[in-house]
């Protein structure tokens, strides 16, 4: 058993309550909580997006990314919530909260987590706008997709 309370890792269809998540992530030893919010952007007339996930594998990959970050950075907690379903411009797609004693490691871990997530977690998005719809191209690199 580790010394911290179990982090939140989830894929959800519900609206993400960022404020409540940050409050819930706080622990007495933390002096810094770095949060990353990914939001639906109006790119050339995009009105909404639809996200889908290979859920079992996506949750497992998120857990792997959290475990990696906990090993590699001196941080206290990692929470990751990724939304799926239909989202409008301005809605939160992704929330990553990293809690640490100090800000530097929390910023570094946060960036690492988001970069890994975009490479390996099986989630896809389709944009819907004035000019029709299109799948957002994924990461075609050699390390793309779930590691195992």
């Amino acid at each position: 058993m580790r010394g911290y309370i179990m982090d939140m890792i989830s894929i959800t269809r519900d609206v993400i309550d960022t404020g409540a998540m940050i409050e819930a992530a706080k622990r007495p030893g933390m002096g810094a909580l770095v949060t990353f919010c990914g939001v639906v952007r109006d790119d050339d007339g995009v009105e909404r997006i639809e996200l889908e996930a290979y859920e079992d594998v996506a949750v497992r990959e998120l857990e792997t990314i959290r475990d990696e970050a906990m090993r590699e950075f001196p941080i206290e907690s990692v929470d990751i919530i990724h939304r799926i379903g239909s989202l409008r411009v301005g809605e939160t797609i992704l929330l990553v909260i990293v809690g640490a004693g100090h800000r530097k490691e929390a910023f570094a871990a946060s960036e690492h987590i988001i970069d890994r997530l975009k490479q390996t977690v099986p989630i896809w998005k389709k944009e819907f706008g004035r000019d029709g719809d299109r799948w957002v191209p994924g990461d075609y690199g050699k390390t793309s997709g779930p590691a195992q």
Partner: protein
Amino acid sequence: MKIRVKAFARFREILGSDLPIEFPDGAVMATILAALRGRAGDEGDAIFDGAGRLRTHVILMRNGRRVKRDELDTLVLADGDEVAIFPPVAGG
């Protein structure tokens, strides 16, 4: 035996989302891919190249584990296995 094939994103639109497909016992991954190629028809270009081989960026999993390209002809599937096929990921 029955294999459950899950396709995602653009591949889901081409192949369908969650298909139980019947195969003879002893079927290998390449057998499943041949069936999917038939199912995809003209739209299969997104998944297979001109020679019918899986395009390099296509990701294939069996029961939640990555399947390597050199296993396609040797990996024997079992009744109830779940095969997933999808394009590069684009979350976040």
